[in-house]
């Protein structure tokens, strides 16, 4: 680890903290239905959308209607993306003549983008036409992100409204989020990224004759428009196969710095939105602090482990020491311009959030370095988390935390002014238990089937990590991978898609039930017996609950993969 590496990590965190409040305030205005600076331009567009769609913007929805609207919208999205990929060969804007996708790959990718997972069974520049990139992947990056944010806001309304019946209007939340938040920010972000060197064109790939006279075909396309929203919406599905490691998808260290800020910007701001909506910004900062603690634990572990390098290399006389002339450390699968500090910072952030973009291959990390992204995903991606998904996931843990605190003192717990009773606790447990079912269950299935084992590229415990990571990533709607796995087979495409659906919808529906149950309750004013949820004790308890729930569930599986591999590596075993 170097001083400069830590300076980069700390400056990143300071900048994130500085944008949290202003952006949170902006989100608050948008979702409270107030006018914003850009309403003058986009207001008529918004009203036009409602008119054509037959939406009454004033009509509020019960939680069941809100959830059903979301599910129907996702169904429409899925069908459209599936068909677009199957028949892209018949459609325009396909200068490379890409053929239509196989049915199982199109199914996997459609589920993947609709659930905000953006797992890459597809190969990017070798698979997708420009039309599929624009009309398919880019659009779903916007609307799946807006869906997640809308759901989080609806859940918060369950806390903030008193004795209500409704939790908002899905169509209005979806539209306002896309028009006022995502689109303007994506335009600014894309221009910044283009300035840094990201291509944005519709030309065919460029054939060149290199300096030594070899042929090289340089893939390009409408990259920036897709990547800006890919990061902002914590989607993470790459334009290129190598994702944000590709020099066109992440040209400079500055573009990389900007992209990791984009990942956490909205998830961090949503904690402030929560605070504003329940009329105590401190409540938001408490959640923010718990997330920050877990973030620093992750990035420190990952950065330390990768800085150590590979013990086998040291024996060969390879210099892995960081110096002013090189980053050193374990550089397999990492880019020179990012080095160790920025590769591990990116890996931590992309898995804290449900982004899943990568600027280095997690598969080639040291065992403990690679365990950090895996654990981040398994904890439920609540460390800032995906846009919306991170907040509603962390609120599930917060309910569990006050429930446990309530058990200790034998008093009905309260959170944000609402009594937490049996129904809410049952629902969050249902949501939290669906996740291990989908990731451990599917891993167990793949481990005993030849169709599962044939996809592995690494042997020994690392092979198990590869497999476990795939289902963890799908269930967590993350989308990053231990990329050696050959996942573009019918078996993996279908089982991973199932994991993604369970991880998204089997979590969302119970959480919306919580929102519906909370919204009808009266506000309980804080009394002397109320457990304060805006102080250090609660932050510590929340961090503890996240780690204990995750640890109890996943420690045995982790022991079989990265932990045994670590000791094996130190003992000098090779596979």
């Amino acid at each position: 680890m170097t001083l400069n590496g830590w300076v980069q990590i700390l400056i990143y965190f300071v900048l994130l903290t500085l944008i949290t409040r202003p952006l949170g305030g902006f989100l608050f205005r948008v979702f409270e239905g107030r006018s914003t600076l850009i309403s003058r331009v986009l207001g008529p567009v918004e009203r036009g959308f409602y008119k054509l769609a037959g939406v009454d913007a004033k009509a509020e929805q019960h939680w069941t209607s809100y959830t059903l609207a979301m599910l129907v919208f996702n169904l429409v999205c899925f069908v459209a993306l599936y068909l677009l990929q199957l028949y892209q060969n018949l459609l325009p804007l396909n200068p490379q003549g890409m053929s239509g996708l196989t049915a199982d790959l199109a199914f996997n990718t459609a589920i993947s983008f609709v659930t905000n997972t953006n797992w890459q069974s597809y190969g990017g520049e070798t698979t997708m036409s420009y039309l599929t990139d624009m009309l398919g992947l880019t659009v779903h990056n916007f609307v799946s992100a807006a869906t997640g944010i809308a759901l989080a806001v609806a859940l918060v309304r369950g806390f903030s409204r008193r004795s209500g019946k409704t939790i908002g209007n899905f169509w209005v939340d979806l539209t306002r989020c896309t028009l006022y938040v995502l689109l303007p920010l994506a335009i600014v972000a894309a221009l910044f990224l283009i300035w840094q060197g990201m291509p944005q064109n519709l030309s065919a790939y460029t054939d060149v004759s290199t300096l030594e006279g070899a042929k090289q075909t340089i893939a390009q396309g409408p990259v920036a428009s897709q990547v800006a929203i890919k990061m902002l919406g914590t989607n993470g599905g790459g334009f290129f196969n190598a994702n944000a490691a590709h020099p066109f998808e992440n040209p400079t260290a500055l573009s990389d710095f900007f992209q990791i800020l984009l990942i956490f910007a909205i998830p961090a701001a949503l904690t402030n939105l929560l605070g504003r909506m329940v009329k105590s910004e401190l409540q938001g900062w408490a959640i923010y602090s718990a997330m920050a603690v877990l973030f620093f634990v992750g990035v420190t572990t990952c950065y330390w482990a990768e800085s150590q390098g590979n013990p086998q290399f040291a024996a060969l006389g390879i210099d892995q020491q960081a110096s002013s002339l090189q980053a050193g450390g374990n550089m397999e699968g990492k880019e020179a311009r990012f080095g160790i500090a920025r590769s591990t910072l990116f890996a931590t952030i992309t898995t804290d959030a449900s982004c899943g973009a990568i600027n280095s291959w997690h598969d080639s990390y040291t065992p403990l370095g690679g365990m950090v992204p895996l654990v981040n995903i398994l904890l439920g991606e609540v460390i800032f988390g995906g846009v919306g998904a991170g907040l509603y996931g962390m609120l599930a843990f917060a309910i569990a935390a006050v429930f446990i605190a309530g058990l200790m003192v034998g008093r009905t717990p309260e959170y944000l002014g609402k009594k937490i009773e049996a129904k809410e606790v049952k629902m969050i447990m249902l949501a939290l238990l669906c996740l291990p079912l989908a990731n451990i269950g599917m891993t167990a299935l793949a481990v005993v089937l030849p169709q599962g084992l044939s996809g592995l590229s690494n042997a020994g415990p690392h092979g198990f990590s590869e497999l476990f990571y795939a289902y963890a990533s799908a269930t967590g709607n993350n989308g990053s991978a231990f990329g050696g796995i050959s996942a573009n087979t019918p078996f993996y495409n279908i089982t991973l898609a199932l994991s993604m659906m369970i991880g998204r919808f089997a979590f969302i529906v119970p959480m919306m039930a919580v929102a519906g149950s909370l919204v009808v309750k009266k506000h309980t004013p804080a009394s002397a017996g109320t457990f304060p949820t805006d102080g250090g004790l609660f932050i510590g308890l929340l961090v503890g609950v996240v780690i204990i729930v995750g640890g109890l569930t996943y420690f045995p599986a982790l022991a079989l993969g990265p932990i045994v591999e670590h000791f094996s590596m130190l003992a000098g075993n090779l596979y």
Partner: protein
Amino acid sequence: MLNHFRPAIVLFVLFTALTGLAYPLALTGIAHTLFPRQAGGSLIEKDGKVIGSSLIGQNFTGEQYFHGRPSATTDTDPNDSTKTVPAPYNAANSAGSNIGPTAKSLIDRVKDDTAKLKAENPNAPVPVDLVTTSASGIDPHVSPAAADFQVPRVAKARGLGEDAVRELVAQHTEGRTLGFIGEPVVNVLELNLALDAAAPVKTAPAAPAAPAADPATAPANPAAPAATEAGH
């Protein structure tokens, strides 16, 4: 439930038109006005011909050029479309090795590459980025340590003094952005272009030093043919 289908379909179509057509097309237009070079892929021309992109690494194998990092990219096997063959720096199929730290294949590959590099420059430790594959397979950069390691070979092949070559490397070393962002790097293609301009190989005394595609000097996949024919 049925009453949700109209807003779902209509809004989906409207969002598709707005974020899937208007947004990327408008950006393409704006980008070509404001940042034409970047938007077009930062292509480099030499004598009126496009020879590459400053952001995309190339597979250098000749002794008179600085080499980039090992690359794990592949291409479709021309003889069997279900298989792939190594094709370093294939810019139409970016990829990393995805080999784990305890894989025998990783250690074997690194051992081979290290032995070759040590034969070329026995006086310095081998910088780790010269024997590890990059994440994209088309990393345009190496660390300053990796460039420095290659100076004796390049200087000899070009008939230049080592100090002159080191001076060129120093000129093409990019520091951290704003002094703290990222890592110092050397852009290999730009450095090699500068080398060609400063000391063209044809007039240098040691001109015939390197048969350009000598497989022994290929950094990544020693068994791989140098061809990077990228299919459409």
